[in-house]
């Protein structure tokens, strides 16, 4: 760009634009920062007025998140000294830790169902995307639209028959049921995104491989797959984030064994109402991985949210 380019904004307008954007970014971060701070507050600090920005940090929220506790008599507490640092925190309220809470379990469910469905949708999606990209398939455009439209369906509308179907098949509240369901929702995204990525790989590579005596299968997994690795990885992250965040199906179809974290976090109850520091701690632990993934994904973000339509 030359120094006299008419499209290059002046230094002053750059400075002005920059400060407005930074101001917006800072304002938009306040709620997130606040929730992370609240995770390190004591329950009384969390609900104090005026809201406290400076406070004494404590891990109480996190301890309450991961444990279940009961109140004990003074005699019992004196007879049994605290076992560890977490126990010590709880002792301030005349309580003892009696065991782990359900949060760990629910978090693990989120991980299992997230990774399971991501793996399945990427596996099936890559195959389908390759076929759509390279072969002549009758009614290809209609099939692709059909695949996309399944993602647009309102979850609650789909949940009614799925609820009945899962009840009959014994799949309600099971990991398998949730994995299959999330795979079905994610596969449309996977096919559309991966088709875009595979379309970008020049056909000549495979043709050269075919001439060298590779079969189609070999050409697919020895030539195309390595080339599409970045695309597959970013598609996988998108699928994972979706499955991780999903709430509507989870709240309607699971209640115990296979319940994921999103329906669980809002139900964390402390002594005397909602235990906000524990809820905030749960939210922080739950949201942090997604934020990290978003930063990793930033180059492909636009592609992912528009089903591959906008490439830049």
């Amino acid at each position: 760009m030359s120094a006299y380019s008419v499209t290059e904004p002046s230094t002053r307008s750059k400075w002005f634009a920059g400060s407005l954007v930074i101001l917006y970014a800072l304002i938009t971060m306040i709620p997130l920062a606040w929730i992370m701070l609240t995770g390190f507050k004591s329950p009384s600090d969390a609900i104090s007025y005026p809201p406290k920005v400076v406070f004494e940090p404590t891990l109480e929220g996190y301890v309450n998140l991961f444990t279940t506790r009961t109140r004990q008599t003074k005699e019992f507490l004196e007879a049994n000294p605290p076992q560890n640092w977490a126990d010590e925190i709880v002792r301030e309220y005349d309580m003892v830790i009696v065991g782990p809470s359900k949060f760990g379990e629910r978090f693990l469910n989120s991980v299992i169902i997230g990774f399971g469905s991501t793996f399945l949708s990427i596996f099936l999606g890559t195959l389908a995307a390759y076929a759509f990209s390279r072969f002549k398939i009758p009614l290809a455009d209609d099939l692709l639209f059909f695949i996309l439209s399944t993602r647009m369906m309102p979850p609650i509308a789909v949940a009614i028959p799925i609820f009945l179907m899962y009840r009959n098949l014994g799949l309600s509240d099971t990991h398998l049921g949730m994995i299959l369901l999330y795979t079905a929702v994610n596969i449309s995204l996977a096919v559309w995104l991966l088709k875009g990525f595979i379309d970008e790989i020049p056909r000549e590579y495979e043709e050269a491989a075919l001439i060298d005596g590779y079969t189609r299968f070999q050409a697919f997994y020895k030539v195309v797959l390595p080339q599409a690795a970045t695309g597959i990885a970013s598609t996988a992250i998108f699928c994972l984030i979706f499955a991780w965040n999903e709430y509507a199906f989870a709240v309607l179809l699971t209640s115990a064994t296979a319940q994921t974290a999103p329906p669980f976090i809002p139900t964390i109850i402390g002594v005397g109402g909602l235990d906000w520091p524990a809820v905030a701690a749960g939210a922080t632990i739950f949201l942090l991985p997604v934020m990290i993934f978003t930063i990793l994904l930033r180059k492909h973000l636009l592609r992912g949210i528009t089903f591959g339509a906008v490439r830049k």
Partner: protein
Amino acid sequence: MTDTIANRAAKATPQKVARKIKGLSDRAIAWIFVAPTIFLLLAINIFPLIWTIQLSFTNYKANRLNREPEFIGLRNYERILTDSDIWLNMQATAHFLFWTIALQVLIGFTLAWLINKKFKGNDLWTTIIVLPMMLSPAVVGNFWKFLYQPQIGLFNYIVAFFTGKDPSSFEMLGSVQLAPWSIVIVDTWMWTPFVMLICLAGLRSIPDYIYEAAEVDRASKLRQFFTITIPMVLPFLMLAVLFRGIENFKMFDLVVQLTGGGPGSTTELTSINLKREAFEKWRTGYASAYAIILFVTVFGLASIYVKALNKVKER
């Protein structure tokens, strides 16, 4: 669209190469690759959909297993479409849709336009701005509920700080007037970056030479903005608006966590209403008809969306 990619692929593979392929024929491989996806979608999306259509003509109740459902024709549809309460829920949805889209387009486009000034460090700030939209809507709704608490919430405190009102004098989630706006605010906070990103792509797709030509013609900056920038970004903006429209039409998780549809039914968007009918009142047949109405609406919007998608793709 006769020149599909598949067609081009067929043309691109020369006869000689095609004959050399060992093992399965391409056609067989294509079917083996596509079939599992189609099968899964048929089992988990299409079969349930057909079942829903069938149920929508009955008075089935899913919590009564031993009662045979009766066929009642179009009566469910008739009842829903003449019910003024459901009409009110639709209007609540319309209020939510209209204001979230208006605000997101306004703020999102402005931000994109500012970021496109290419100031130092714009990438970093863009990444930070984008963060909210990838988060779990249910968890976001849950922690905004904390921010909205009348006595202790940060939102009320900040509003009180700037307006001088008493922070406990208004309840964002509890008052009939404010609750519809509270969900608009959170959705705008969360999804403005989405509109911004798409607008940014639109702005970046405008080649410099168009502006240079306009400059040669001595068109003013303002004129350039309305005759070049806006029309060129419009297809992208349409895409963003349609997508947000579809998503917010079926909005459930965020609002259920924030207000649960209350107070009264002021924020009871259609999905929340449907959930009540289906999973609280267990009027399965009735709810199925309701679901079909929502589904057809979304499907119609989705076909327009795909059309807009292809338009942008051609650029």
